[in-house]
């Protein structure tokens, strides 16, 4: 399954990403990198975890809420999430681009903390379609929780349905040491297709959504 395809003679704009397939040469860029590749035929796109552009420095994703929220046990909410786009053909990866502005933040302290891809989102009560990805979060708490930001693991599963990209369903759990987000492996909506985790392109490590 192909998420998006840019055929010869076509152009694609996806946020910051610009792709132009001129037939014989493919031009692409996102403001962080750009390039030209000699290519006959179409180029395919797929969503990838947002931890590779401009360089693979992050090990997690930090979603900062526009406004802090008080949430109850059993409540569900959605947030907008970033993703990246991988350009590839049958057996070659061409580039990894970001449709969104990229920023990073240190989560935790300077000794034991980790670098996270930072993204700001409103708290949504339902899946509102848009360019950004969506993540559904289920709250498991004793009573209520006060939430300002969420830290998601970098190796999250991605899904798509049509143009819309989704993260796997996440669970926000209240633990003795604080709030923690865990992954469930479930698709958030029916009919969503999971982005393949294994590399289709064995030669290229960058094609993997994981970053070592």
């Amino acid at each position, binding site marked *: 399954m192909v998420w998006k395809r840019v055929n010869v003679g076509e152009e694609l704009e996806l946020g910051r990403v610009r792709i132009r397939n001129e037939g014989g040469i493919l031009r692409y860029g996102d403001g962080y990198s750009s390039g030209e590749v000699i290519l006959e035929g179409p180029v395919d796109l797929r969503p990838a975890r947002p931890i590779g552009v401009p360089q693979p420095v992050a090990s997690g994703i930090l979603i900062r809420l526009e406004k802090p929220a008080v949430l109850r046990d059993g409540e569900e909410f959605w947030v907008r999430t970033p993703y990246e786009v991988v350009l590839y053909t049958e057996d070659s990866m061409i580039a990894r681009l970001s449709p969104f502005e*990229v920023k*990073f933040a240190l989560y935790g302290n*300077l000794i034991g903390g980790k*670098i996270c891809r930072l993204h700001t989102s409103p708290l949504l009560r339902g899946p509102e379609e848009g360019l950004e990805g969506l993540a559904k979060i289920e709250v498991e708490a004793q009573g209520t929780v006060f939430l300002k930001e969420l830290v998601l693991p970098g190796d999250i599963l991605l899904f798509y349905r049509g143009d819309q990209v989704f993260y796997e369903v996440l669970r926000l759990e209240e633990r003795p040491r604080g709030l923690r987000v865990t992954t469930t492996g479930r698709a958030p909506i029916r009919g969503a297709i999971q982005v393949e985790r294994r590399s289709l392109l064995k030669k290229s490590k960058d094609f993997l959504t994981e970053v070592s």
Partner: protein
Amino acid sequence: MDLLKWLEENWERILPYVLVLLGIAVTVFIALFVKALMRRSLGRRMPKHAYSPLEKLVYYGLIVVGVIYSLKPLGLNLTGLLMAGGVLGIVIGFASQAVVSNLLGGLFIYIERPMKIGDPVEIEGVGGEVLDISVLSTRIRTWDGYVVRLPNSRVFNAHITNYAAIPARRIDFAVSIAYGSDIPAAREAIMGALRSHPLVLENPEPEVYVEELGDSAIVLRVRAWAPTKVWFPVKKELVELVYRTLVERGFEIPFPQMDVHLK
């Protein structure tokens, strides 16, 4: 029948040899047991090139000591042998003091793990990337491309700054603007430039402040954090970016100057 009779007659002569063989067998068994025990515990934790010589040292050491003691029933003068061995040991010990010291240093480095291959470090004023940590020495490729070998005994006792042990590192530099400049506007311009760079961290926040009212200029201190992996490339880009931003916004970056009043 003849064999039994022969054994009966010569038993006292044969017994010491039997004891020697038994002693050697027990020695080999104990040495093999210790070797297996070491492999299970240390072998899994230590790198192969460090573990292998240690295992050989212990294994053959046990065999040598065990064989010497096993030869006792033959009436060999072990005191002389041990004394000779002792003297030889002292001689070898003195000769190989540095080697043993480096070996132990290497062993302690493996146990404590203050760095690993590929880490950017600074040891005794030598800064660079760790190329290899071997049994006797640590090799570092300096920032300007040379390969420096440091004996492990010195590495273990030295101050080691490991830049990879922290996720983020601070970029710190000063920039001067002319007297009479709008300081808040300059600060805002620099902050905007810092925030526009994708690899400058939002948290910890970057900061810009007046550090000094210098002889020729107002000195602003610029501080920003970047992931350790990309610290140096980001630093290079930021200095240039801040300069370009200030020039584009019309800020003057003055040369050192002095007003001389003549009477």
